[in-house]
């Protein structure tokens, strides 16, 4: 019986994640279309809402092309690795108080390790296609991914300094009084820029820009493999927006401090007011709203800024963002030790 429950729990996380990936695709096309004063896809369902499923169905039934002189095993293995490790990050995030798959003590570290392996998919896929455009695209994309991953892990270090534990649920619950956006606003900006670059989104999307390298490392991949890259990219966009909202906005906690209202003790425990407060203050709807706003900002940034060149991209990471982050890593532990606000987490077995 417990096996069936764990199977249902696992499916309850994965199937909505994949469906939301599909709807983020549709929303990206419609939102970018609105920003460019056109309509976007509106033929398939009501207002074009089933477009992604039609696309997925078409791609799954398309012919796959395995190029000559390509390593077939690595050719198919690269996208599979990218998809698996892009979806594995959903294992440790809390959707509501008490609602998670795994309460890992090193949840943040797990997500970092998973995104470190996900860069292998791109490296292997581009090299094994045996075409110089795919190879150069994958080299540049891998160099971009590893550089910005450094920024992400440094900012995570500073968030954990103020929180005291690597457990994701501890990070969320320690923001009950005030979200970590207030002390760490510059670091949120750095983390946001890093997360746009980490997911290969515009303005950092040289890997998929068609004017540059004929769609980069995905040039030779045709039908189902392309679906893998597509799914992996949008799943990692949603995952990194969830991570942003967990670290800096409070996850499933509400932004407005409802605890003050409940401290006033204006009503009895079972009235509608109390029920409403307890629903709003820690619920998965908060996480969903924050993540949706951040995904919308991702799409907004894509429609607004021009693409930057590869050498400018690397210069921004190593010569602008990394010195800022190093300066914060030297400053923040001194401030925390000087003001004696070291967080201590005691876990009773």
């Amino acid at each position, binding site marked *: 019986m417990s096996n069936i429950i*764990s*199977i249902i*729990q*696992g*499916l309850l*996380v*994965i199937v909505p994640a994949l469906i939301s990936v599909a709807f983020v695709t549709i929303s990206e096309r419609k939102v970018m279309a609105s920003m460019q004063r056109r309509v976007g896809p509106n033929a398939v369902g009501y207002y074009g809402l089933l477009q992604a499923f039609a696309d997925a169905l078409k791609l*799954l*039934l*398309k*012919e*796959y*092309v*395995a*190029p000559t002189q390509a390593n077939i095993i690595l050719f*198919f293995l690269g996208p*599979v690795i990218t*998809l*698996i490790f892009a*979806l594995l990050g959903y*294992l440790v995030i809390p959707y509501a108080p008490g609602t998670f*798959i795994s309460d890992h003590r090193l949840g943040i570290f797990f997500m970092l390790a998973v995104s470190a392996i996900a860069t292998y998919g791109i490296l292997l896929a581009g090299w094994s296609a*045996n*075409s*110089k455009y*795919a*190879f150069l695209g994958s*080299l540049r994309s891998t*160099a971009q991914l*590893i550089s910005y991953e*450094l920024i992400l*892990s*440094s900012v995570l*270090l500073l968030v*954990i*300094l103020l929180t*005291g*534990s*690597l457990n994701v649920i501890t990070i969320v619950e320690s923001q009950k009084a005030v979200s970590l956006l207030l002390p760490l606003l510059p670091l949120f900006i750095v983390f946001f820029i890093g997360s746009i670059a980490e997911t290969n989104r515009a303005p950092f999307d040289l890997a998929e820009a068609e004017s540059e390298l004929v769609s980069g490392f995905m040039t*030779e991949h045709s039908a*189902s*493999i392309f*679906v893998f890259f597509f799914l992996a990219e949008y799943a990692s966009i949603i995952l990194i927006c969830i991570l942003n909202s967990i670290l800096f906005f409070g996850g499933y906690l509400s932004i407005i401090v409802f605890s003050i209202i409940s401290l006033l003790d204006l009503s009895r425990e079972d009235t509608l007011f109390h029920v409403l407060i307890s629903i709003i203050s820690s619920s998965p709807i908060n996480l969903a709203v924050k993540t949706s706003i951040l995904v919308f900002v991702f799409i907004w940034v894509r429609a607004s800024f021009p693409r930057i*060149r*590869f*050498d*400018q991209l*690397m*210069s*921004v990471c*190593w*010569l*602008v963002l*990394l010195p800022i982050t*190093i300066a914060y*890593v*030297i400053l923040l*532990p001194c401030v925390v*030790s000087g003001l004696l606000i070291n*967080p201590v987490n005691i876990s009773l077995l």
Partner: protein
Amino acid sequence: MTTTTFFLFLMPILAIILLAVNLILSPHNPYQEKDSAFECGFHSFLGQNRTQFSISFFIFALLFLLFDLEIVLVYPYVVSAYTNGIYGLVIMLVFFLVLTLGFAFEIGKNALKIESRQVYNFNYKSWSGYSLIYN
């Protein structure tokens, strides 16, 4: 088995199922023109696919390795900052400052700049030495 184990086994199975659906249900008529590498219609030469590279990729990967090691070694400090007190803070700062000195040396040598031949239109000579990114 728990949900974690099931989740960890479900991911590869999902990927393999999607791959298998495509490999089974799709037509497959390969011929030589379709299978050759993409070169806008031209034929690619045999030895041209894996050629020389610029050294900057190696420098980026090496510097990423060193800074990643440094961050991984600072992670135990941030979870035990209270127990270590001021002494631990000073040790962490010494560790970090040694590596920051190396980073400053490397910024000074312009080792991280990829050369580009773009010429800027504004009077960039007056900005020389002020900006890290341009020229």
